[in-house]
């Protein structure tokens, strides 16, 4: 027998309790990792290759307020602007599905080759999109999900505009961080049921990252004191601003995570206290045999740490395997595209597990080291 064997035998002496303890740590850490990954995905959306050159221009009052089409010609003249496209939310429902299943935006079809150049699609599809007014292009994820192919026709009932529109799939794009959207032509929307003369917002492409601050300032200045004042910002700033509309998610997730960790500490500390309390006499005997305080402290710490570590391996490992190798898009019905368990999140969860092991061992370890042999022998005699 060795000291590690002795510690292991003690830790597993009540197998049911050990399994339950490990499971509770594993479940809590799995939840913690899930929350942290979700928080990261929501607050740090993936950036596409062209993000550093894109500027979002929206109505200063609200994202839901439209902008007049006449702004386009003025923006195009601003030095540093390479391309521009309208970007109008359609809010269509696919077939009989209850809610909005994928986002649809009306754009200038040529923007696929300029503003959103990272979207990869075959040339035929692009040419069809440019040539045919009722055509659309669909992200690969959505196309796969609904089994849509080039040439298919389908209708969407808008929740924003009255009536519905029928589209023909011109192409299927991929290569963006979020290949779920459907893009169709602004002029088709204008001609059919939309509001001619208005768009949802503008996306610009600037000539260089250095030109961006100047473009943003000039765009805002150009429409200052007009009937449609605008707010221009980088894609990154726009995404973060959009996320902030969801509420203080960071605070919400942090609160839930804190409760999870706090509950976990209470459960683990209670389990360790019970486990050690039952063995007070045995620990007193070990003291009598010559084991010193620091050795008993180390035994208890190792036992507690071991249980936490086992729970951590199980909980963090399960989360890692599930979110890394599982199809998260399928699991969340397309709500989430990626769900990356980063080394930083793994490190954070492992740190929580380590602290848990230490904190839950402190009270029983201190009680044991303070206990005299005589007192310990009397406890259960």
């Amino acid at each position: 027998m060795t000291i590690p064997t002795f510690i292991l035998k003690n830790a597993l002496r009540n197998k049911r309790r050990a399994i339950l303890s490990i499971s509770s740590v594993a479940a809590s850490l799995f939840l913690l990792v899930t929350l942290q990954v979700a928080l990261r995905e929501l607050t740090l959306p993936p950036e596409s290759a062209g993000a550093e050159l894109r500027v979002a221009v929206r109505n200063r009052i609200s994202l839901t307020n439209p902008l007049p089409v006449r702004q386009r010609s003025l923006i195009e003249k601003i030095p540093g602007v390479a391309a521009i496209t309208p970007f109008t939310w359609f809010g269509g429902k696919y077939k009989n599905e209850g809610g909005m299943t994928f986002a649809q935006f009306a754009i200038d079809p040529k923007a696929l080759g300029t503003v959103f150049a990272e979207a990869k699609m075959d040339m035929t599809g692009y040419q069809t999109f440019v040539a045919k007014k009722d055509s659309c292009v669909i992200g690969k994820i959505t196309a796969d999900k609904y089994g849509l192919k080039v040439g298919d026709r389908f209708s969407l009932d808008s929740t924003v505009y009255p009536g519905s529109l029928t589209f023909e799939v011109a192409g299927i794009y991929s290569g963006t961080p979020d290949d779920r959207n459907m893009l169709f032509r602004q002029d088709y929307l204008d001609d059919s049921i939309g509001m001619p003369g208005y768009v949802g917002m503008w996306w610009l492409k600037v000539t260089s990252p250095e030109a961006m601050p100047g473009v943003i300032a000039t765009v805002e200045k150009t429409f200052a004191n007009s009937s449609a004042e605008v707010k221009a910002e980088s894609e990154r700033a726009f995404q973060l601003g959009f996320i902030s509309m969801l509420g203080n998610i960071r605070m919400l997730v942090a609160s839930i995570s804190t409760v999870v960790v706090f509950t976990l500490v209470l459960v683990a500390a209670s389990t360790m206290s019970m486990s050690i309390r039952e063995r007070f006499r045995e620990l007193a005997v070990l003291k009598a045999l010559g084991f010193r305080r620091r050795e008993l402290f180390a035994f208890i710490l190792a036992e507690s740490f071991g249980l936490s570590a086992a729970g951590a391996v199980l909980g963090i490992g399960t989360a890692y395997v599930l979110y890394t190798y599982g199809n998260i898009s399928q699991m969340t019905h397309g709500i989430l595209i990626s769900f990356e368990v980063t080394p930083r999140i793994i490190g954070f969860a492992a740190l929580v597990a380590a602290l848990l092991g230490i904190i839950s061992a402190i009270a029983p370890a201190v009680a044991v080291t303070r206990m005299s042999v005589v007192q310990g022998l009397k406890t259960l005699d």
Partner: protein
Amino acid sequence: MASPENIVVIRDLTKRYSQGEIEVTALDRVSLEIATGEFLALMGPSGSGKSTLLHIIAGVDRPTSGECHVQGVDVARLNESQLADWRNQNIGFIFQTFNLIPVLTAAENVELPLLLTQLNRSQRRKQVAAALDLVGLSDRSHHLPRQLSGGQEQRVAIARALVTDPALIVADEPTGNLDSHSAQDVLTALQSLRRDAGKTIIMVTHDPKAAAFGTRQIHLEKGELS
């Protein structure tokens, strides 16, 4: 101080402790000498202070005043860490309730005190086998305590007490939880340890029949030797 023949020398040993607001005198100026190789039976009624005296001699309790020299060492002057080392090297414990670790086999229980020594695994195994052989339990080395009878458990505890080859073995009511047959076996084992291995044994007991196995009997009454 201890003469070479005396393994334990106690001078004016007093132990007081508080029980709520009442101060209890467990030992009152006790003086005692125990010769090397002696099998001392310490008798007395409950609360007479015999276990307290045993605990102080074994270095698990401290006196309020007085001196307790064991093998020339004043145990009261050692700090906690020194005392732990000293107990491991010099004292073998036998308890009334055996106090074996339930998740360890007989051999592993006996090996426990050796984990604190510098011995390697094979040396430890050799000593464990020898100790179990001495108490006649070689064939039970892989049994858990729950698979042993009370008498066998106590013999494992005896093997654990002598595996480090201590000079002094202290036994607190070692037959208190045993039937008469098993008690006889345990007492015979202790007797042979004194006779064949030259160990000094101090045994606390209520039982005059058990005390009769000792080479000397002393009585404590209200913390004083009578």
